[in-house]
Each structure stands twice: as structure tokens, then as C-alpha cells.
């Protein structure tokens, strides 16, 4: 549909800095990562362990102040090998994003699966499977950030 004429194009960019507040619950969760600890909170009503820790249960609408240190091991529920890149992408491809059910928890934790060669998709496909057991691998230097966990590697 594009016509052949060369019309002018304005090149523009909008860059706005943000300060996003963690609040008390997530401050405690992310501070926990500095100590190589993953925290969840248990709902007193439905008994689900929610991870990352939440200030309230999204189904029972009661405050969740029962803090539990959750397992750093779990099983892959689903995964995706990303091979493309967009502007400002916070994680550089190739990488594997995955939903991981940490042992003893009731929600799926979203993070990376790593520690394997990602250069060949066919190899990745043969290696990574749903249901596969993985464990957290930590960065040496920690910042109280979600990427303090480097990735989850197959056990």
C-alpha cells in the first residue's frame, strides 16, 4: 500500500525518568534477594503461598502478613526461547523466560532459565522441558533487584 513518493519523516524520541516506589512489602521481598532469600506470603484464608510476596491475597482480599522463605528449587511450567530484540529491551536475547513453580508455593514465579548453551534452538528444545527441575543461581553482587537471581539452572 505504501506509495512511492518520499514524504518527510520526523524522527522523535520521548525519554522520561521515573521513580517507582516499592512500598513496604516489596521492599522486604527485594531486600530478601540481597541475602539470597526468596520470600512469599501465605494467605490465612485460602492457605496459598504467593510469590513474590504480596501485601494481600488477590482472591480472598485479606492482608497476607505471614512471611515464608520459599524453596529455591522448582519445576518449569512453561518456557520460551526469545530470539528477537526490541528498543530498550531489559534482557538481551537469546534468553529463556519461564514460569517456575517453586516447591511449596501456589503461584508460578516468572524468571530466566540459564546455565545452558542458548546458541542453538534445536539443542535448547531438546534440553529444556516442561516439568524439568531447576534451582536458583545468584549474582555475586546484589542490588535488591529481581535480577539478583541470575537465572534458574537445570538440576
Amino acid at each position: 500500500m505504501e506509495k512511492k513518493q518520499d514524504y518527510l519523516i520526523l524522527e522523535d524520541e520521548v525519554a522520561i525518568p521515573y521513580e517507582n516506589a516499592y512500598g513496604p512489602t516489596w521492599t522486604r521481598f527485594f531486600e530478601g534477594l540481597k541475602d539470597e532469600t526468596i520470600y512469599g506470603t501465605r494467605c490465612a484464608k485460602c492457605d496459598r503461598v504467593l510469590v513474590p510476596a504480596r501485601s494481600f491475597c488477590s482472591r480472598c482480599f485479606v492482608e497476607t502478613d505471614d512471611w515464608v522463605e520459599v524453596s529455591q528449587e522448582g519445576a518449569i511450567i512453561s518456557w520460551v526461547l526469545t530470539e528477537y530484540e526490541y528498543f530498550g529491551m531489559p534482557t538481551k536475547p537469546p534468553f529463556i523466560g519461564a514460569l517456575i513453580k517453586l516447591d511449596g508455593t501456589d503461584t508460578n514465579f516468572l524468571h530466566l532459565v540459564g546455565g545452558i548453551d542458548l546458541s542453538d534452538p534445536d539443542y535448547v528444545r531438546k534440553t529444556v522441558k516442561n516439568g524439568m527441575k531447576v534451582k536458583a543461581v545468584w549474582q555475586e553482587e546484589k542490588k535488591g533487584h529481581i535480577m539478583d537471581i541470575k537465572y534458574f539452572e537445570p538440576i
Partner: protein
Amino acid sequence: MGRPVAIIGSGQTYHGRRFDVTYPELVKEAVDALFEKTGISPDDIEGVVSGTMPSMMEGVALTHFYFAEVLRSVGKPIMKTETCGSTGISLAFTGYYWVASGMADLVLVVGSEKMNEGDSQATMTTVVEPFYQRYFIAGAPGVFSMQCQEWSTRFGIPEEKVREAATRITIDHHNDAFDNPYAHIKKRLTPEEVNNARIITYPIRLWDVCPNSDGACAMIFASEEMVKKYGLKPAWVKGVGYSGEEYWFGDSEKAIWQCAIDAAKQAYNMAGITNPRKELDVAEVYNPFTYQEMLYYECFGFCDFGEACDLVLKGVFSREGELPCDPSGGTLCTNPIGATGLNRVAEAALQVTGQAGDHQIPGAKLSLAHAMGGVDQYNGVMILGSKK
């Protein structure tokens, strides 16, 4: 339940990389086409609804202000509706609610996007909060790949069969697009071309993914009185259903996808549909990804869970099949995202009024339109019929 409401006309732009016009001029193309086709005067419109994906797709916020003139909205009430990928169906719902409530008799609804002016996946990533999920989601293809893996594992569908069915879907739709004058990507694909295309987010390859399109869609929702006044062929809104789920991607199951199931159920109940595969004549399912289209067939009760691949391979959902899905080529071939859901409604309306041209399903009387939004979070379904 509100008053009876009908769609009495629609206008679509040609889609593609539309650098031949500015963004407002693109919107004008759809609105002008609508008024020209229906013969309705813009002066008779009582209210306007406008919608896009996140405004930052084109770097201009609150675009309904930017579009005031081309929407013919000066001096009239205007609403903006924005629900991510489901924006288009939400726009249709907003127009429907407005007329059904009795607060207006004639409402203009317009969806638009100029995706090629920005970076679509960079924009969509801002739908995800910056503390936790944004690092792993990898835009729309990442989310839908994970959903696909969850679905195929859950029902034990062999990877080869899922691939074969997805390949059939993309070949069929890209063929169908040749019969839709407004479709963006029209291509005769071979299985080899599809199966060997480059990986975007494994298992999704290039031809499993919708394009970035520039385009707009405009539509008029009318009361029964206005249907009589203008004498245009009406597509009656028989049922609507919209359902969402929790925000966190890992909190709810995406294979047996509750919000999709519930949205369809609500719409079927309202329309009195008990056997959708038998009763519906055509469906415009929101299919930005081949795999997801099959998941919808199951969630919408077109077939049982785990059965979609087999039925796709038997041709049940192709143009000549029992329930043709996306004869327009669907989202897979044309995706101006803020307009995409409204395109589904426009196509479903064209079908039940016998105006779909070369991709008309003969004798279609009852159709389904659908769109999905958020990080797999919302689904909306609208049922249209030729009779009130």
C-alpha cells in the same frame, strides 16, 4: 438488558506501512469511508468513542484530542476506551452500552493504530510493571509462546502435530487475505517456507506472528429507531461477554483459560446459543498468533480441549468448513492493534449483512467477533445476527 442495538455501517482503511498519510489523516480515511458508504450525516452522530493501544505507540498521548476534527467530534461528547489488544472489542462494547442504555441513538466508534511509527514491542512492554515481570515477558510473542507451551503440554499434543496445524492455519489465512481488499499481508505460503522461517520466540516462527500494521476502523451503533430511519442493513448485537483475570501472569492457568471461557459463555447465554459450532455461521477470532487461535477454538466451545489441532487439520474451521474462522485473514494478516478488535466486529457485521464481498460465507446469519488484551488478561466476545 437494555434496548436493541445494531451496527449499521463500517469503514476500514487500507493497511500496511502507511507513511503516505499522517496519523489523523489515516483515521479520517476510515471515518470518511463510513459516512460515504452509509450516507449518514456526521451532524446526526450524538457521541464519539475513540481508542488505541497504549498511546505511546506513536509517541502522542490521548490521541482522541489529536483526532477531534477527523472524528467529527467537535461539539460532541467523546470517550476514550483503551484495553490493550482488546481495545477494539471494548470500543464496540462502549458504543453498544451507550445506545443500549437509551442515552444516545447514533454513536460513532473508531479504533486506530500506526504501529510502524514506533516500536510496538517496546510499547507493549510498558504494559508490564517494571519491578519484576518486565525482564522476562519478551513482548507479545514471549507471552503467547509460553501460553502455547502450557497448552500443548497440558493436553499432551505432540509438538509435530501442533506445528502442522499452525502451518495449515497460517497458509489458509494468508490465502484468505487475498479476498479481503483491506488486508495487509497477502501471500501464498508453502509448508516448507512456514516451517523453516526464522524463530521469533521458540516455538513461534515468523509466519506464526501477526504483522505491525497502520490502519483504522470506524463503525456506527444505532437504536432500532435509527435502523428504521436510515434503512441500512443492520447487524444486531445479540450477545456480549467480557471477562478478565488477575494481573500476575503466573497466578492463573492459561491453557484452560477462564476469562476466554467466561467471556464466550456470557455472550452465548445472552444470545441463546447452546452449540456454538453448529449455530454460528462464521467467527472472527482474534488470532495474533497461530497457536492462540486453536486455544480459542477450545475455550469458546467450538470443540473439546486438546481437540483443536485435529479439527484444524480436517478443515473444520477453514473457509469451506463447518465453522469458518477468520475468512478475512484475521489478525494474523492485519494488525493495526487499536483497531484490530473493531475490525473483527466490522468483519462479523459484514458477514451477517451479506456485504463481505469475495470472502462472504454464503448465507451467514449469526457471527462471533472477539479480541484479547493485556498480558493474557482479558477477553471480549460479541455475537452479531441478521435478525433482532
